[in-house]
């Protein structure tokens, strides 16, 4: 049943043109424009082309908002009036929720992979090890989707849950120093390096590309995966309470 539900979820997502534009077309457009502005410039701190840094940051930053897919479908199918139909079926609604999260996670990770491959082949962006990139994409996508699901299952007001999840994504981008540099000492530095999903993803990929900070990269991947598992446990607990 999970595979069956996932198949129909994929059809639904492919017809959601807004999502496709926001998570694939828009990031590609921004990478293109910002890359043109950056030209052949090199990031002094990392020692990699600025274009590469832009592409890496944009792909992972986009993943932070991919959880909207899961959130919207959980609300639509299981928390709105549709729930009466779904609950009348000989089908556990928790399984449907799992199918939603599984298919949406893979779908958004694939969207990220499309951008990765496009930028690699067309713009010559060096992503290092594509296998690692896929692992990071999947871990980040899983974390994003589960975090959004936890919020919508925990909060009574769905709109508030949506707003909170958007703000968490933006805060993550700020903490990663994308818009302005973060302090390099103190607690903020630790949070900036290891305390937000965007930085963790960047750490992993930069470690492979530059050869520096390998241990930081490994720790980052471990934290990403562990956070996803923890979020999965919380989502399962909240799901059993709210959807049973």
């Amino acid at each position, binding site marked *: 049943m999970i595979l069956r539900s996932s198949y129909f979820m994929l059809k639904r997502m492919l017809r959601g043109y807004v999502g496709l534009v926001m998570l694939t077309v828009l990031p590609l457009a921004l990478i293109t424009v910002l890359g043109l502005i950056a030209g052949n410039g090199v990031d002094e701190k990392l020692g990699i082309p600025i274009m590469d840094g832009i592409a890496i940051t944009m792909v992972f930053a986009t993943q932070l908002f991919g959880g909207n897919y899961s959130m919207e479908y959980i609300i639509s199918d299981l928390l709105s009036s549709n729930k009466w*139909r779904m*609950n*009348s079926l000989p089908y556990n609604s928790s399984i449907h929720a799992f199918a939603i999260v599984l298919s949406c996670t893979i779908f958004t990770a694939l969207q990220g992979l499309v951008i990765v491959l496009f930028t690699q082949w067309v713009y010559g962006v060096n992503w290092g090890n594509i296998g690692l990139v896929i692992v990071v994409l999947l871990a980040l996508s899983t974390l994003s989707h589960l975090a959004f699901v936890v919020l919508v299952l925990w909060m009574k007001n769905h709109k508030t849950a949506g707003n909170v999840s958007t703000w968490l994504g933006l805060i993550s981008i700020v903490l990663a120093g994308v818009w302005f540099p973060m302090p390099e000492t103190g607690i903020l530095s630790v949070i900036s390096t290891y305390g937000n999903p965007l930085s963790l993803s960047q750490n992993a990929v930069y470690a492979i590309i530059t050869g520096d900070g390998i241990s930081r990269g490994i720790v980052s991947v471990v934290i990403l995966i562990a956070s996803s598992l923890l979020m999965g446990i919380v989502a399962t607990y909240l799901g059993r309470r709210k959807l049973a």
Partner: protein
Amino acid sequence: MAIAHMKNIVKRYGANLVLDHVDLDIAEGEILGLLGPNGAGKTTLIHALAGLISIDTGDIQIFNKQQKSNLMDIKRQIGLVTQDITIFGDLTARENLEFFGGIYGLRGKELKERVDETLRFVGLTEYSGKLPTKFSGGMMRRLNIACALVHRPKFLIMDEPTVGIDPQSRNHILETVRKLNRQGTTILYTTHYMEEVQAIASRVVIMDQGHVIAQGTIEELVEKIQHEEKIKLEVMEPTEALLEKLRRIDGVKDVSLRGKEILIISRVGAGNLDRALSVAKEAGGVRSVNAEKPTLEDVFLTLTGKSLRDGGEE
């Protein structure tokens, strides 16, 4: 034989007692009309019957099985047509049916045939490849019904399936309900349109404030209040003095004025039609007179003190 049996059902939401020791049997093969004003508990009763909500006390058996311990099995054999449209707007009509049919265990050739058959049954074959967002209200209602029929349920629960649609679509849906029943499906049908119940129901249950207050065929229910008749007099000069004189006639229960039309509720057999005409003629003349047998609307009004359409539906 009862296809569904509910005994002593109690359901509270906080301090609000929504179902108050409700007993209800639904016979195999019948169309049972469930009527009640806003807040009567009809939707809660349906949700309890379909296993969507738990009950505080009571016993529910469907297909001779305890609902609690056989819920999934029971759900495979019932269909629920919800009051709201609950289809996937981003899947085509055919895909919606394929999804739901698959949940009910249909696969491969059997699923395809069943989907085709259901689309034909509700008259949506031509639109099978289109998204419901392109449908009219009536078409969406038909697809809403189709999703509950694809697996050929033995027992179909329909919660106000014709809300907000045009008369032509409504008639199509009522004809669909009759066809299904002729094919052997037992149907529980809630509505606040009296004419729908009169058109299709073999038996009617009237609910109010969490209780079943009357049940039976339409004829049996009308018999209950056969002790009353309705007389409508359109007079030249309706005055308070005339109304007072009519009220004082022996056997008259109620007199009310609507414009120039006086409505008199009187005991049957009291011979009040002649008396009322005499009084009205003396007071200035009568333009028209009409004596009516009680209808289901009257049964409802008598038993609940409310018009069915007061305040809409829950």
